[in-house]
């Protein structure tokens, strides 16, 4: 599914965000990327949906060499990748339904299709009853559910979650991780960047640990810290 070959990212200000990363992630895997702030977790995620391009090396997603895409091809890559943010990035003046449907509208989907898929996504994340609410009326956990619904509404094979529980209390964190696990089991590859020790230790999945832009550990059924 994902292949990173000797990927480095050097910013013009001299900061080395990533250094010679080699990583293979198979279909339907559930991978935690862990490490302290500034370790390069977010940069790594952004490479996958081409918000950033590597200074050297190659990024391959679903057999497509992302590094070689022209700007015109990028939108089509992104339709196959869902992204979940720590700060949800919901559009404030739109209802829950509109926020989720928006992701389909901008790809030019047919109206009937938009309605069906949006309802299904809201059903899956348990937000169907709040469809006509506005984001400001929702709790943090509910907002994150809507954000997840938007990310999966067009059934992408790959879901990226960047600190999805960073703003949530432990109980809600647990619920959101359960939801992400459920989506992963519906054959979606899931990559979650986090520095929440509890969820990593609890879920016991593959853990890739970054430090100062390098992979220092890649462990199946891992925990947050090497033991």
């Amino acid at each position, binding site marked *: 599914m994902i292949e990173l070959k000797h990927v480095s990212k050097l910013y013009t200000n001299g900061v080395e965000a990533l250094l010679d990363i080699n990583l293979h992630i198979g279909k339907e895997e559930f991978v935690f990327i862990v490490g302290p702030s500034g370790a390069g977790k977010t940069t790594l995620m952004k490479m996958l*949906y081409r918000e950033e391009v590597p200074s050297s090396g190659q990024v391959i997603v679903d057999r497509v060499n992302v590094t070689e895409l022209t*700007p*015109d091809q990028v*939108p*089509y*890559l*992104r*339709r196959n990748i869902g*992204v979940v943010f720590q700060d949800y*990035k919901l*559009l404030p*003046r739109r209802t829950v339904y509109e926020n989720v449907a*928006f*992701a389909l*509208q*901008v*790809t*030019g989907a*047919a109206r009937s299709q938009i309605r069906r898929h949006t309802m299904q996504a809201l059903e899956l994340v348990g937000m169907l009853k709040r469809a006509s609410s506005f984001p400001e009326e929702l709790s943090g956990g509910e907002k994150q559910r809507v954000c997840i619904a*938007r990310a999966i509404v*067009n059934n992408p094979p790959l879901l990226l979650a960047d600190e999805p529980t960073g703003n949530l209390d432990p109980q809600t964190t647990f619920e959101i991780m359960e939801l992400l696990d459920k989506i992963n089991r519906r054959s979606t590859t899931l990559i979650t960047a986090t520095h929440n020790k509890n969820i990593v230790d609890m879920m016991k999945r593959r853990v890739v640990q970054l430090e100062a832009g390098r992979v220092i550990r890649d462990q199946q059924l891992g925990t947050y810290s090497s033991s």
Partner: protein
Amino acid sequence: MSVLSNLEFFVVEALRSIRRSGLMSIVAIGIVIISLTIFGMFLLFMANLGNIVAFMGSRLDIVAYVDKDLTADAAQVLQTSISQIGGVDTVVYVPKEEAWKNFREEFGAKLDLREVMDENPLPNSFSIKVTSPDVLPKVAESVANFADVSEVRYSGKLIKQIQTMVDAVRLGGLLLSVLLFFATLLIVVNTIRLTVLARETDIYIMRLVGATKSFIRWPFVIEGVLMGIMGGAFGIMILKFSYESVLARIKDALPFLPVVSDPNVLTLIYLSVGITGVLLGMLGGYISVSRILKEKG
């Protein structure tokens, strides 16, 4: 994924955006109205000026005097030749007897010409009308080249002066219009840019979920077009009502002035004003969103 199938989405987004930036949108539309009205006034002014020049030109004719002893047959041949010159509208042969009669009728009341002279001193002549004042000098020159023509007269100087003035006004007006167009464009661009900035998260999300650049651009282009249409519609209304009231007064006070009142010409002018408004808005919307798309790649 055609533009048409997404049109509803684009228009809804554009209206949402205009509503959200309320006051600024109103200001921008107001400036579009003012600019388009000035532009339309200039077009109307030019059309009227052109009309007056053409009217004056059509009243100016060339008089070609011919040799005294030209026979009637030879005059007939010459008349045909002159009428074949490009730009000639009508050629009328004026025999010296008729010219003398006209002259006496015009001035005879004021003085008794018989006291001055008994014999008709006037030569035979042709009165030539041309299709447009521009060709006057050329036609006059061609006519002068005929061997039987002894002298050619026309009010070339006056026409030339008018033409020079019209050209100057036309150039000045054109420059003013271009200036006005860019000034208005700048305001439209900046207004829509404010709405672009207000919608940065929208645009970010759109890009993230795989909207193409043109898809992101369309709502802003339509926002501009809607502003252009609104500005254009008001501008046309202002122009139409004010021109019609001025027209009525001129027709009352100066009935001989050849003002433009042909509905076809007026419709064309109003249409150009409207189209300019739409173009202005379209371009404004396109430019305002292009920069942010370029920055973000």
